[in-house]
């Protein structure tokens, strides 16, 4: 079985995965399919279970319950070194005693690949660092180490490439540049990338599909645009961008739209953008208009003019915690 695992290809399927540490459920009954060839992001705040999920895919942790399949092959208990899966670690985890060349050649040599030189040089050219082959990792900058970590993984052409917060240690400018490069490399080599991050912007820029995780479960999964425009839960709405959620009730029905009553103001919302299950809702109205003077900031109790475009609004269940996700929203501007 393990012999087959190393050549397994196909979609990655997690079926009802749970991982417990004592009483703590890091991942809670998670089911997920990651299509072959996609750039998939697991997005969520610290402690949401995304890194644990990644480690289970890599084989560094074993699920308490559930199974992991790669295509037809069950890899739930396969050892990491027998999986056709490679990881770009958060701190890169380059081997400090080996040259850059030998770092990249490590996986090839273990698998007994013949033409190590050609493979390593090819991937060094891909990450545009062929001149660093003879150096040691400590002699490289953070951005260069990041590329070598990527090269060391993709040189093995794994069925799946896992990226654990790969850009977390880079400064903003370099991070932006690497986001574009990673996306480009993924298209170039055509591998399945699974990217774990807490940075919404990073996930939005690179991924085809994003799964937003919270407390060990997937809150919502979809394309970046879907998630941003039409979140289904307050957590997603707040985590992906500050939302202005206003409490109201559904008071009527108008063909494809619902009529909602927000503190006496009637608004209409497309039905397909309403995730309410009863009469009580939170509506998101994205355009505010300042009062006449246009300078003084709002104070509590001020009267404001509200306008909105129905296609940018959405309605959530009224029993949700309106602040969910906002407290864990990382400071987007921390690097600026």
């Amino acid at each position, binding site marked *: 079985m393990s012999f087959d695992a190393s050549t397994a290809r196909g979609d990655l399927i997690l079926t009802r995965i749970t991982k417990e540490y004592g009483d703590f459920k890091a991942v809670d009954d998670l089911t997920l399919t990651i299509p072959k060839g996609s750039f998939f992001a697991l997005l969520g705040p610290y402690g949401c279970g995304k890194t644990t999920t990644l480690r289970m895919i*890599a*084989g*560094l942790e074993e699920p308490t319950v559930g199974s992991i399949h790669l295509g037809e092959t069950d890899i739930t208990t396969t*050892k*990491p*070194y*027998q999986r056709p*899966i*490679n*990881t770009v*670690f*958060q*701190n890169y*985890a*380059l*081997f*400090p*005693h080996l040259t850059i060349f030998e770092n990249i050649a*490590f*996986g090839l040599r*273990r*698998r007994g690949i013949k033409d190590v030189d050609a493979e390593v040089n090819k991937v060094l050219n891909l990450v545009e660092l062929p001149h660093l082959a003879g150096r040691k990792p*400590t002699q490289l900058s953070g951005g260069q180490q990041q590329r070598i970590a990527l090269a*060391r*993984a993709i040189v*093995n052409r794994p069925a799946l490439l896992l990226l654990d917060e790969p850009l977390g240690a880079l400064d903003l400018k370099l991070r932006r540049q690497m986001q574009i490069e990673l996306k480009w490399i993924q298209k170039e080599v055509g591998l399945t990338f699974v990217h774990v991050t807490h940075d919404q912007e990073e996930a939005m820029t690179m991924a085809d599909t994003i799964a937003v995780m919270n407390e060990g479960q997937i809150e919502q999964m979809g394309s970046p645009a879907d998630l941003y425009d039409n979140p289904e839960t307050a957590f997603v709405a707040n985590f992906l961008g500050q939302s202005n959620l206003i409490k109201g009730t559904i008071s009527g029905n108008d063909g494809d739209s619902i009529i909602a009553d927000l503190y006496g103001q009637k608004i209409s919302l497309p039905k397909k953008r309403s995730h309410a299950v009863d009469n009580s809702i939170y509506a998101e109205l994205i355009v505010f208009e300042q009062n006449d003077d246009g300078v003084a900031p709002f104070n509590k109790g001020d009267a404001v003019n509200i306008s909105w475009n129905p296609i940018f609004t959405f309605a959530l269940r009224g029993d949700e915690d309106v602040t969910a996700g906002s407290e864990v929203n990382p400071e987007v501007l921390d690097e600026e």
Partner: protein
Amino acid sequence: MGKIRTPYLLLLPGFLFLFTFFILPILNLAQTSTQTPIAGGDTGQYEQTLRFQNYIDAFIENREQFSRSFVYALIATVLALAISYPLAYAIAFKGGKFKNFLLVLVVAPFFTSFLLRTVAWKQILGEEGFVVPTLRTIGIISPSTTLTSTSFAVVMGMTYNFLPFMTLPLYASIDRIDPRTLEASGDLYANAFTTFRKVTLPLSMPGVVAGTLLTFIPAAGDYVNAAILGSPNTKMIGNVIESRYFKIVDYPTAAALSFTLMAAILILVTLYIRKAGTEELV
């Protein structure tokens, strides 16, 4: 100017100390090593003659003890390494919050005197200890075999006494290894054994080199273990030097042997460090 002088002033006490208690005695020892007995003089009376033949005489006479010293020290070093590596690895990677406590346990024997602990080994391995009767009962050693006054006891004593010198540098080195590099190795198709051979061991080489040197050098010059746990047949070069100095009062031979021992250790250590490849060390 005052600023420039300060470091030298701070170095002065150390320099004076080393000059008085290291450089002067070494020069004195060098001088003594080429002396010859005064014709018709008393025991212990020597005159300066620059007789370098002393070195050759002393070496030829004590070849056996020299080679025994190095063989015993080598075996003790290898045993200490074999015991210490798993120990240091376990403390570094599995010690968790007990790391410091476990390290204190490693050093704990030092709270008792070196001599006392060696004498304790004599009791443990003696006829009245529990080891010999147990081994005889289960038939590992014959009823007539004893463990004290054997080379086995001497090497065991040396291994035990120098164990912390091996464990501590190994621990320091292994503890610095980022466990994620080991995960990365597994991720890159290396099984546990290959990961040890290709990542863990190379990254812990500074500790292996430091630990083996800190064990081998004092073990090669040791005489306490051989004196307490050994017999005349297990005499090491340290025992010879000791008896030449304090019992036979043959200062020139003792001094010549001391220098030969120093030179031999220096040559072996140099070859070893060359071989272990310091440039490969991180």
